[in-house]
């Protein structure tokens, strides 16, 4: 079974996003960029499927600027076999991304695509399910546990109120949630080896996909601030305040 894992280069999750003064977006110049944390979990899961002998090949793909290659190398260093870099300087929407991924999944003959449940920059949370719809594949989103068996995959999903288990007939799309696994760190020898792994260079045009955006950003602003209140000296004082507010 061939597994495909898309990864996105995003503002590092430890860095606070700063809105640009002209309200055109978030300032991404001279800030640390990393692999989307949910994508790290996807990569880890694909590598584990390979180590278990379930996956025959694990291919990582990133759609983004020249530097997205670094993100692909990171995935190769933890055990992905091969990379595909679809280079574009446009900030593509999940719909366009899903269309490109559909073409790649078909071309590669992938049986399983593992995506993060959302990217922590735009927070759309749409790519995985959109891809599943375009391919007419079943989906298991917000995966907590996955288990493959023959031509099916069982996905335990994080849902409101607890966990839900679904069984999907392969090929399928799985999107990862936080507790699926704990991603490993790349070892130095593997980082060196990853430099020799193959990365195919492509463009959106190679897949014949219209990537024109459907949404126009009118403006990006700071969220309404919440000012700090007061410190109370004791539990008694706190209870007094809350009673005055009428919330208890």
């Amino acid at each position: 079974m061939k597994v495909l894992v898309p990864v996105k280069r995003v503002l590092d999750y430890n860095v606070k996003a700063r809105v640009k003064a002209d309200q055109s977006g978030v300032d991404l110049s001279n800030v640390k960029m990393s692999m989307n944390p949910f994508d790290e979990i996807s990569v880890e899961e694909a590598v584990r499927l390979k180590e278990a002998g379930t996956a025959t090949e694990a291919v990582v793909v990133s759609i983004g600027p020249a530097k997205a290659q670094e993100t692909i190398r990171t995935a190769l260093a933890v055990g992905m076999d091969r990379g595909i870099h679809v280079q574009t300087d446009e900030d593509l929407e999940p719909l366009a991304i899903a269309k490109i991924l559909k073409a790649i999944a078909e071309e590669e003959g992938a049986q399983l695509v593992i995506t993060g449940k959302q990217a922590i920059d735009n927070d759309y949370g749409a790519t995985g399910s959109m891809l599943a719809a375009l391919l007419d594949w079943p989906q298991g989103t917000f995966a907590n546990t996955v288990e493959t068996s023959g031509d099916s995959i069982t996905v335990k999903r994080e849902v409101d109120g607890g966990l839900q288990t679904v069984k999907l007939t392969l090929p399928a799309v799985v999107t990862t949630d936080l507790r699926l696994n704990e991603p490993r760190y790349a070892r130095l020898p593997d980082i060196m080896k990853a430099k020799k792994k193959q990365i195919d260079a492509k463009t959106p045009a190679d897949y014949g996909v219209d990537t024109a955006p459907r949404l126009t950003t009118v403006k990006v602003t700071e969220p309404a601030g919440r000012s700090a209140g007061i410190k109370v000296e004791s539990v008694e004082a706190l209870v007094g305040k809350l009673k005055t507010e009428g919330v208890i």
Partner: protein
Amino acid sequence: MAILVVAEHDNTDLKDATHKTVTAAAAMGGDVDILVAGTGVKDVMAAAAKIDGVRAVLGVDHVSLTRQLAEAMEAVIVPLMSEYDAILAPDTTAHKNYMPRVAAKLDVMQISSITGVESADTFVRPIYAGNAMATVKSSDSKKVITVRTTAFNAAGEGGSASDKMLADPASPSTSEFVGEELTKSDRPELAAAKIVVSGGRGVGSSENFAIIESLADKLGAAVGASRAAVDAGYVPNDYQVGQTGKSVAPELYIAIGISGAIQHLAGMKDSKIIVAINKDEDAPIFQVADYGLVADLFIAVPELEAAL
């Protein structure tokens, strides 16, 4: 303009998230219909028909929709969309699951987790875990939208919409429901509770979480947690409040042993009153708290419970 709102329900009760989504839909202007997809949906449909400003309630009653699996929901909704200009659903896990499928099938870009409606085609939504707010204008002919329900007031009840049953959908053949493990609790639901008591890494262990739960029970509150507490295994993931968990906006939010990471604040900063109890006086949570108490939570929390 005709707008379809998908109801949030558990086949027995209609959830408040539906009323809030109706408010967002009404702000776009046009006729609002509600879709109730599930099994044995008569009662839920009757409740939905009472929501103010609703034109009609559509029901579809089929075993494949009991758990609202994504493939089944797509099969029901996509054909309906020839009659509608927009579809809105709460951004809870049930709807976040299938809405992008609907969008992709209609070849439109989903507008996720909106917190504001500027006009019929322009919406405000949080990005970067709520550290920035983007105003986006959609050029798609149909709008597929999920709604951050904590940002909208619930529509009132007093209406009497018409109702109509739809034909049974075809069952999806490639996915099936196997089982579920739901957290059993007599406490209110996290997303709808008037009071939420949350614990963070400072609570220290799964056993220690009992003092958070005990305070919550005294207050009739829901129990939440920070991602750090979930990652540390103190509580299940569905307790998680924050960017990667649930968004809540109760009357009173009590954050205990929570430092106040950006990703946590994203999920609770719309609460009316925020109380923080933390022994670290420099914890970022104090910057958003209305009332802060610098104290050892293991002393302050039992004391607070006793004082109520």
